[in-house]
């Protein structure tokens, strides 16, 4: 099998379908059986499947003519039932078996699931099975958690840790730090009127027409305060190329020219 896989598994994505037609039995296994099988050494057989046939009745008419039983090997578990009857399902979803190698990532088709079985303890060993169930129930009754009364109840445990206090204080400090930054961003303090007028004249020397938003950005002053001063010093252009902008009044322009002349 391994050699065949080695030969044919050249490409990683191709599916090996040489064993596609092989029939596979899918058997639902009780937990006890699974555990014992995992612990079983591989040299000895795990169990024995017995096929039982009733010669008086033909198979086609009665599906129960053929019966399967499984007899367990080994006797590690004391109360484990030795004999199980395999119940065959009549209708199930069509299934197939794939295998993936852990090293090369090769994928292979292993076969189709033709029979699906369910294991049930056989009637002969019912007393042993009863004991097993009783033990299981007793184990589940055991409680894992217990209620304890604290001996040292002087209140030391009730106090918060000193590190926590430090953390809380640091958090509050961080909060305090963030607030003034926001305040400075939102509010703008008014400058002296004379200083602001000087700044405005310099700006208008640089550029004859300014919009209110641009002036607010340049001077960083509240818009209402700027409007008051603009109404005094400037004229608002409502039409023309410089629509929506402020321009210095003529007398101030002349004065600027005079100063430049001087």
């Amino acid at each position: 099998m391994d050699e065949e896989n080695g030969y044919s598994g050249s490409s990683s994505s191709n599916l090996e379908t040489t064993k596609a037609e092989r029939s596979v039995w899918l058997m639902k296994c009780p937990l006890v059986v699974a555990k014992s099988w995992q612990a079983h050494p591989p040299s000895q057989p795990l169990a024995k499947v017995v096929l039982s046939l009733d010669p008086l009745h033909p198979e086609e008419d009665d599906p129960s003519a053929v019966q399967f039983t499984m007899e367990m090997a080994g006797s590690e578990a004391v109360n484990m039932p030795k004999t199980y009857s395999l119940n065959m399902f009549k209708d199930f979803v069509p299934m197939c078996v794939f295998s993936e190698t852990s090293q090369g990532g090769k994928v292979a088709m292993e076969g189709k699931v033709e029979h699906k079985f369910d294991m049930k303890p056989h009637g002969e060993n019912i007393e042993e099975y009863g004991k097993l169930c009783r033990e299981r129930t007793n184990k589940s009754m055991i409680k894992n958690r217990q209620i304890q009364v604290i001996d040292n109840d002087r209140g030391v445990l009730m106090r918060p840790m000193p590190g926590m206090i430090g953390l809380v204080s640091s958090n509050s400090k961080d909060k305090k730090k963030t607030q003034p930054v926001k305040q400075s961003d939102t509010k703008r303090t008014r400058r002296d009127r004379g200083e602001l007028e000087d700044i405005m004249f310099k700006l208008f020397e640089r550029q004859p027409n300014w919009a209110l938003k641009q002036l607010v950005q340049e001077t960083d002053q509240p818009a209402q305060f700027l409007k008051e001063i603009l109404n005094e010093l400037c004229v608002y252009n409502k039409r023309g190329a410089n629509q929506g902008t402020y321009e210095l009044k003529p007398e101030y322009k002349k004065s600027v020219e005079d100063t430049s002349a001087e």
Partner: protein
Amino acid sequence: MSTDLQLKSSCSGCGSTTDLYGSNCKHMTLCLSCGKTMAEKRAKCFDCGATLTRLIREYNVRASSTNDKNYFIGRFINGLPDFSKKKSAENKWSLQKDGLHGRQITDTLREKYKNKPWLLEDETGQSQFQGHLEGSQSATYYLLMKERKEFVAIPAGSWYNFNKVAQYKQLTLEEAEEKMKNRKKTADGYQRWMMKAANNGPAAFGEHGKFDDKESNTGGVRIRKKTGEDDEGHVSDKGEEDEEEESERKSRLGLNKRAGDDDEEGPRGGDHDLDDDDVEKGDDWEHEEIFTDDDEAVGNDPEEREDLAPEVPAPPEIKQDEEEEDEDNEEGGGLSKSGKELKKLLGKASGLNESDAEDDDDDDDDVEDDVGVPPAIATKQKDALKEEPVDNSPSKPTATGPARGTPSSKSSKGKRKLNEEAKPSNTAPPKKVKVENEPKVSTKDGNGSASKNSAPPKGTPPLSSKAGSSTTTSGPVSEEEIRAVLRQKTPVTTQDLVAKFKARLRCSEQFSGDPFGLMAKLHLCFFATCRISKHLLRSLRESLRYRRLQVEPVMLS
């Protein structure tokens, strides 16, 4: 475990070697047909004598020897595909994790794609399956595979549900929808490109539909801008404005937005292409227009008057004509022309009139004194006559000194002499005639007060006049001259200023009898030319108000 059944090589009844079974007591080996006949006859075992009821076989179950592989189960709800090679020899299948196309699989990749679904594909691509992991299976399953006469038990791993890729077809539909959307986007881009081209060319005005489309788009853009700008404005001016101020600010911002939109769209004809909202904005805009027009109207008048003041001096002929006109006005009504030119200063003029009335009261007192002591009055009159020539004498050398415009100045001085000679002759008539000529007398007294004020600092005037003459040229009074005078003497009185520049003022004859008019003229000059000296203007106005206050208590008392 019960003893193992060991089948013999042939049937004990008929000797056949196929379909061999053991008896239920495990002592005989029988074929299927012989078993049937014996059961029907209720035959018994030869060895132990038990009745034959069932035929049995036994198989051993062993653990799997190969531990390299990981087995998993694939459920195909719609039926298993055909994997056998016999039917379709050339057909090949590929099973791989989703996203691992053509990669070399490593441990890290396997762990990464652990929960990814499997893709099962046919070479031709006709049938495709996608296997998703099923998490509900918690039972333990074993696979029993038959090998010769034994079973091999292999534990089964995870379960996967394989479905056909009708899901993929649905995805293809979604892809188609995306393609349709992309087509729409490209169409929009194409339309936008066309709109821009149309705007640039002359065809822009002919196509109305495209305008509508673009306006709708730009409208959306405006809405976004509005929200952004409003938020910014609100944040910046938090807690500093009243509701009315906010409304004004919003309206202004609206105007700014309009300007911005115009810039984006480029030059347009006017308001014809605007939507209803824009029309509303226009209404607000027009409203503000009216307001600003009023402001401009209020502002323009003083500008015009101010412009008149610093005009270039006219040639001498025109000056003579103007002087003649001034004389006519003085003869007619006195303050009529000054009143017309200085509408804004009517309040101050009324103040001046009040002061004149008070002067009249003083004249009445003088009249009473004349009646009481005639010889003393006569002596005072003589003194006044003596003083007048003294005043005339210093003016003459100043005129001759700079040697500027001598004929015009001489003619003006001659006119003044004529006026002065006429006025004393008027004073000579009897008392009744004096009462009739009271306004003239009041004006004369004003001149006298001005001359008296100028008389005490006689020593200093020639120095100041020389300095003024050296620095400046002939013509009307300019800003620089006034500044120089103000800088020389910090505490300067308006009357002193008027006295110094009296001779050089345009229309000097007009204002010779009105010192307050002269001060008003100076106010206009300052307002027109000086931005820096606003504070000085305010102080001058305050001084005027102070004078009014001084006069009023006298009236009350």
